[in-house]
């Protein structure tokens, strides 16, 4: 194998699994250390910089970081159940414990105005996370950002569809407020029904962040009767939020297996549904809902039934009586493609009083005229540059669910960042695809022979459980938040489970004396000195086999004996024992910093006064 080029920042970035997996590349280990140090404001600000909504995401994020977390891999065959660090819930700890004066510190960290930026007017359609993130990046630079929103207040899907028992309204008000207070204009109660008209208002750029607002319906027999008892999930959730729906029938069927279905069934449990079933076409494991959302629903007495395809609604004496389902099975064809087929078992009937259809969301752009130079693809989605989010009408950019279909909040935020960078370039007559390099740094953590400036001890604890409000309270009051968040002491313990993957093992081959001390001491058998070979060959003959091909091998140039040092990054604990046992300092633990650059920063990151940067 060729020696690893650690000068490429993406090499070490990838080792920080959580940050690599996060669409917004939040500096996770760094903020977890800040939480452990009790520096909640700094932890919050570090989050706010990348993901803009720490309090909201600390409760509702899809947390792509957690399945990626190295802790989940190193705990394999070590104890009961391998679990990642509770990254998402630690984020909430930073939000819960931040101090009141944080807005002042936010402003101190913002980049400075760009002279002349105030000449440009930018319109955002929809006040959801994508538009808000974009506004957060552009307003401080001096751009005039106006957000048009059909509802009265900002927040979009986060406010109207995510139920209050998962996300209290005060959290949304605060975090949306931080952005609007930056001088962003929110025009509420104004639905944009024509892009042409908006273009005629002479905005310099338009950002479409309107989400995927249409819930998919299910056109099966019986759908058109008793329509007041058969609802499309996201519309029903919005009605619950606006108070139009205050109760639901005793027996409720929720169709669909995604997170919206989970929000529907849990909301139904709180509005009088005491027999709530989620009925899904495919298997339990293939359901789109996050594992923890399924667990939470089941914990609240929701029954999940799988492999049942809805066939028809049945109405008796003018009332909705129930639904028929066809039992399904899966089959893989020769190409490994999965198909769902009916089994020979008889259809099954389930009684119900009300049905919530949560089988997906669709994008719909009936308000975008087709002659504006804005092209759509065969699926009715806008044609976009995946990097810049720019449409074929150079003035119009997309982001969030409106761009590539339903994703999640954290993706919407990242789209907002990227679109903001593009719009900034576009307005400054620069190359729209230009991206300033990330801010990176690699600094030794060695303070003494056995002293590191990070806590390298490995906590043996298993993942801590977030406490819940009692069921009697949560199931009777839809506004009662279920999760109570970690207390500070538990948060500290959970933070100790983090392996500090951003503190990198850096090898300098010239001073290695090949004493084997690192090989001997490594608890995870990560390090091998051996003859070089191609990757597949090397992976098979390391101290411990490197079977996880998604994780890189760190290969050195040949050392004195002609062998190479190969380190499998897969299950490294970043405990620093290799560096501690190294007599020559050929191994060193160096903290790697990787910060994405946002609009108007990056070319000259020092525009942010140095003393106001967070150290951790």
């Amino acid at each position, binding site marked *: 194998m060729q020696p690893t080029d650690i000068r490429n920042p993406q090499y070490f970035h990838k080792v920080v699994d959580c940050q690599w997996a996060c669409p917004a590349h939040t500096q996770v280990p760094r903020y977890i250390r800040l939480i452990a140090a009790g520096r909640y404001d700094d932890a919050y600000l570090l989050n706010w910089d990348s993901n803009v909504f720490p309090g909201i995401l600390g409760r509702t994020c899809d947390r792509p970081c957690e399945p990626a977390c190295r802790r989940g891999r*190193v705990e394999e065959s070590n104890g009961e159940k391998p679990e990642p660090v509770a990254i998402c819930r630690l984020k909430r700890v930073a939000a819960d414990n931040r101090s009141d004066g944080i807005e002042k510190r936010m402003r101190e960290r913002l980049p400075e105005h760009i002279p002349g930026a105030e000449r440009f007017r930018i319109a955002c359609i929809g006040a959801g996370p994508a538009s808000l993130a974009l506004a957060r990046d552009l307003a401080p630079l001096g751009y005039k950002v106006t957000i048009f929103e059909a509802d009265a207040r900002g927040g979009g899907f986060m406010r109207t569809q995510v139920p209050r028992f998962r996300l209290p309204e005060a959290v949304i008000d605060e975090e949306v407020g931080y952005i609007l207070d930056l001088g962003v204009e929110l025009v509420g109660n104004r639905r944009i029904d024509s892009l042409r008209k908006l273009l005629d208002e002479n905005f310099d750029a338009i950002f479409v962040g309107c989400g995927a607002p249409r819930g998919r319906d299910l056109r099966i027999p019986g759908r058109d009767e008793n329509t007041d008892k058969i609802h499309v999930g996201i519309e029903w959730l919005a009605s619950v939020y606006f108070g139009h729906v205050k109760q639901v029938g005793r027996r409720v069927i929720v169709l669909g297996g995604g997170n919206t279905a989970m929000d529907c069934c849990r909301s139904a449990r709180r509005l009088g549904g005491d027999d709530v079933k989620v009925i899904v076409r495919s298997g339990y494991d293939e359901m789109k809902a996050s594992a923890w959302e399924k667990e939470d629903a089941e914990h609240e007495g929701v029954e999940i039934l799988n492999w049942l395809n809805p066939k028809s609604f049945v109405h008796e004496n003018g009332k909705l009586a129930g639904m028929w389902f066809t039992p399904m099975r899966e089959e893989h064809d020769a190409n490994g493609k999965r198909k769902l087929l009916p089994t020979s078992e008889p259809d099954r009937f389930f009684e119900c009083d009300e049905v919530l259809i949560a089988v997906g969301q669709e994008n719909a752009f009936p308000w975008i005229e087709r002659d504006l130079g804005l092209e759509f693809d065969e699926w009715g989605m806008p044609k976009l540059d995946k990097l810049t989010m720019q449409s074929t009408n150079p003035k119009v950019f997309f982001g969030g669910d409106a761009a590539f279909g339903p994703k999640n909040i954290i993706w919407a935020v990242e789209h907002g960042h990227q679109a903001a960078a593009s719009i900034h370039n576009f307005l400054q007559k620069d190359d729209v695809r230009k991206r300033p390099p990330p801010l990176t740094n690699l600094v030794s953590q060695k303070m003494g022979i*056995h002293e590191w400036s990070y806590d*390298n001890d490995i906590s043996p604890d298993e993942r801590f459980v977030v406490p819940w409000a009692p069921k009697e309270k949560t199931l009777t009051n839809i506004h009662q938040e279920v999760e109570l968040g970690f207390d500070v002491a538990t948060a500290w313990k959970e933070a100790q489970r983090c392996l500090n993957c951003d503190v990198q093992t850096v090898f300098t081959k010239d001073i290695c004396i*090949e004493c084997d001390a690192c*090989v001997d001491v490594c*608890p995870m058998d990560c390090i091998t000195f051996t003859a070089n070979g191609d990757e597949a060959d090397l992976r098979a003959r390391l101290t411990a086999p490197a079977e996880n091909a998604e994780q890189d091998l760190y290969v050195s140039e040949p050392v004195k004996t002609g062998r190479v040092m190969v380190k499998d990054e897969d299950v490294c604990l970043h405990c620093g024992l290799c560096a501690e046992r190294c007599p020559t300092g050929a191994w060193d633990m160096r903290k790697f910093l990787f910060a994405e650059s946002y609009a108007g920063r990056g070319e000259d990151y020092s525009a942010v006064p140095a003393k106001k940067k967070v150290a951790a």
Partner: protein
Amino acid sequence: MTYLPKPKLHHPSLQRNRVGFTRRDYEGAISTLCAGCGHDSISAAIIQACWELDIEPHRVAKLSGIGCSSKTPTYFLSASHGFNTVHGRMPSVLTGANLANRELLYLGISGDGDSASIGIGQFVHAIRRGVDMVYIVENNGVYGLTKGQFSATADQGSKSKKGAVNTDAPVDMVGMALQLGASFVARSFSGDKSQLVPILKAAMSHKGASFVDVLSPCVAFNNHEGSTKSYDFIREHNHALCRMDFISGRDEITVDCPPGEVREVRQHDGSVLHLRKLPDSHDTADRVAAMNYLHACQARGEIVTGLLYVDPEAPDLHAHLETAPIAFNTLGERELCPGSATLAKINAGLR
């Protein structure tokens, strides 16, 4: 020296051996020796060898004297019996322990100071008597604990870290072991586990006095230019006598090597040593030839490593003394107190 205990977490694919242990189960406390010490690699090799041989840790006794090397039994096999003796007296205590309980595996861990200076009288007699043990000398040529004075195994002409030249002739422990009748004699290098681990496995399976001299650089005091026991010097002058594979009696023998090149040595417990690339001139069953080869290499300035001599059928101390075939602690009251009639008979035999 490391303050952090080694985390208990281990690689997910870590295997268990036939007696149900992982390699990590054979570890001890974390080493407090200097970072990079060769001794730590020897500890790791002992751990690896014991795991591969499916040895039950509680059937091992590790004995040592005083010095850096003699600290190391703390760093491996924490579930085994241990005895840290007075300086240089490990061989005597080991001999006594072995006489009382012949059913354990005895690891005598010593250094060049402990064995070639203060304990040399003990060393020669334990070897001479054929005590069934693995005598490991972790040989770095200096007194590391007292800041690097030359030890008795330092080569004439080698330089200390401060530049002083050693004028004394070295004690050649391998030569002594051969001459004193050790039935398994080998030398290896802490920096070459692919050679050291099979040698340790073969020595542990050998019945009789096994002597293994392991060159083990002292990173703090003897790893500089002018030293003859530094990592660089040993790597440059290492003359590996042969490649050895150790095949325990249980393993199916499947070594794909042309038969002409492999020499087999079968030990009493059924284990087989496969010696490859052994020069035709060398016969591991010939004690005199081994001594000659050793000295010839030495004269050429080479450090010969590998298995030099083995007598797979050698008798040990118990055979010499015709002792009871089982450990004393398993003898019953009748065997231990055979009665006044037997005593009278013994007394009569002494008149």
